[in-house]
């Protein structure tokens, strides 16, 4: 089973994720060329990059500054989500063993803290969806489901690392959860991990290059 989830299934999930996101990005741009000419009338690389930069930096925009607590939570959430799995020691060992690829690793203690921090941030986000009326009213079941999909690899990974319950089973569940997350990305709003850059580039140019207004 371990061989299967780290072998063929890993290929399939990484493949769907990479091909899916490439196809998605290309088709968004191609459709825009056909139907959204307005996007290109005022396109400006400078304004695009400034717009993206201000929203990648914590508290870089006015709306982020107006909600400092939630902004801090989302930045913790996104940073841990991206950094932990990519620089996790045990993941890197796997890459090294299978492909002879190696790069930097986080210390195990730091990665452990980041996992807890991520789970905590995700719980705050769930809680916020339940208690903030303006968030609750736009929340649907899929929002909770996707949060669960993203949390699952972290929770199961935490269990596996600390060898709680049965390690072998937990490890396989953990890998499966990670693969499910990768597969789901191109087909859901999680695709914002790439599309964020496109929509921000558009609005940065639209507001900036057309009328000199900053979008942050």
């Amino acid at each position, binding site marked *: 089973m371990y061989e299967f989830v780290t072998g063929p299934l890993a290929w399939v999930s990484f493949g769907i994720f990479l091909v899916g996101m490439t196809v998605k990005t290309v088709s*968004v*741009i*191609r*459709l*825009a060329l*056909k*139907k*959204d000419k307005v*996007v290109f009338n005022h396109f400006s690389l400078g304004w695009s990059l400034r*717009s993206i930069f201000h*929203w990648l930096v914590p508290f870089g*925009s*006015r*709306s*982020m500054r*107006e*909600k400092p607590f939630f902004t801090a939570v*989302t930045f913790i959430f996104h940073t841990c989500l991206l950094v932990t799995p990519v620089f996790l020691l045990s993941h890197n060992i796997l890459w090294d063993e299978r492909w002879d690829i190696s790069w930097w690793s986080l210390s195990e203690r730091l990665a452990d803290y980041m996992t807890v921090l991520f789970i905590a941030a995700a719980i705050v986000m769930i809680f*916020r*969806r339940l208690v*903030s*009326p*303006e*968030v*609750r*009213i*736009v*929340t*649907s079941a899929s*929002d909770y489901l996707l949060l669960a999909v993203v949390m699952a690899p972290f929770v199961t990974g935490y269990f596996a690392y600390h060898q709680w319950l049965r390690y072998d089973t937990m490890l396989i569940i953990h890998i499966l959860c990670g693969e499910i997350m990768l597969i789901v990305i191109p087909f*859901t*709003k999680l*695709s*914002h991990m790439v*599309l*964020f850059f*496109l*929509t*921000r580039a*558009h*609005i*940065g140019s*639209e*507001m900036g290059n057309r009328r000199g*207004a900053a*979008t*942050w």
Partner: protein
Amino acid sequence: MAEPAVNTDIIREKLAAVKGSRFKTWLQICAHCGYCADSCFFYLAHDKDPKYMPAYKVMKTLGRLYEKKGKVSRTELEEMASIAYGDCTACRRCTLYCPFGIDIAVMMAAVRGILCTQGLAPENLMTAVQSYYDFGNQMSVTTEDFVDTCNWMVEETEEEVPGLKIPIDQPGADLMYTINAREAKFYPQDIAEAAIIFHAAGESWTFPSMGWDDTNLAMFAGEMKCAARNVKMVYDAAKKLGAKRIGVSE
């Protein structure tokens, strides 16, 4: 009284027409994060009633139209009209508050464009639209009335500013000046005051006899054909007169 029919075909056609890359992407990636709420003065002015938060207003209008593939009842359309015209000014402030830069006002404008085809735009906006078609301005001012008003203002200011002119259709003027039709209709002294400034500044300027109204209520109604026609009318007048710039009052 039977309620007026809903033309689903036209709604579908319009929905398909606006569903390009932007709408598709925006509708898919909205994270429902709630950042847009605090940008909206309707939301703030209603004691943070979540009904007025921008993303929700889109879900209740455009979102629902796509969901139901245009098959909505007259009552539903009326609810949408109350949101699209009554609870949103399309000011685009929420766009600036959105982490993804989702242009909510543009989507609202598209909703208005759809409602317009079902006769649900506010009546006075539609009166203005008819007036643009019939007279080239929103207040049914005929060209004759407009020229008369300008001449009258020249007479009125004769003593105060001798030699003041209000040129109309003067080819080769640097600046083509345009106004809100309200100025010609109710506040002609505004025209005189602008003319005095141009006169004192030694500006080379002119009014066009057609295309002098720079307002575009058709755009607010969602009647985009008329809105485009209005802009084109002003632009064509400037081109015909060979003006270098177009001046907009207010």
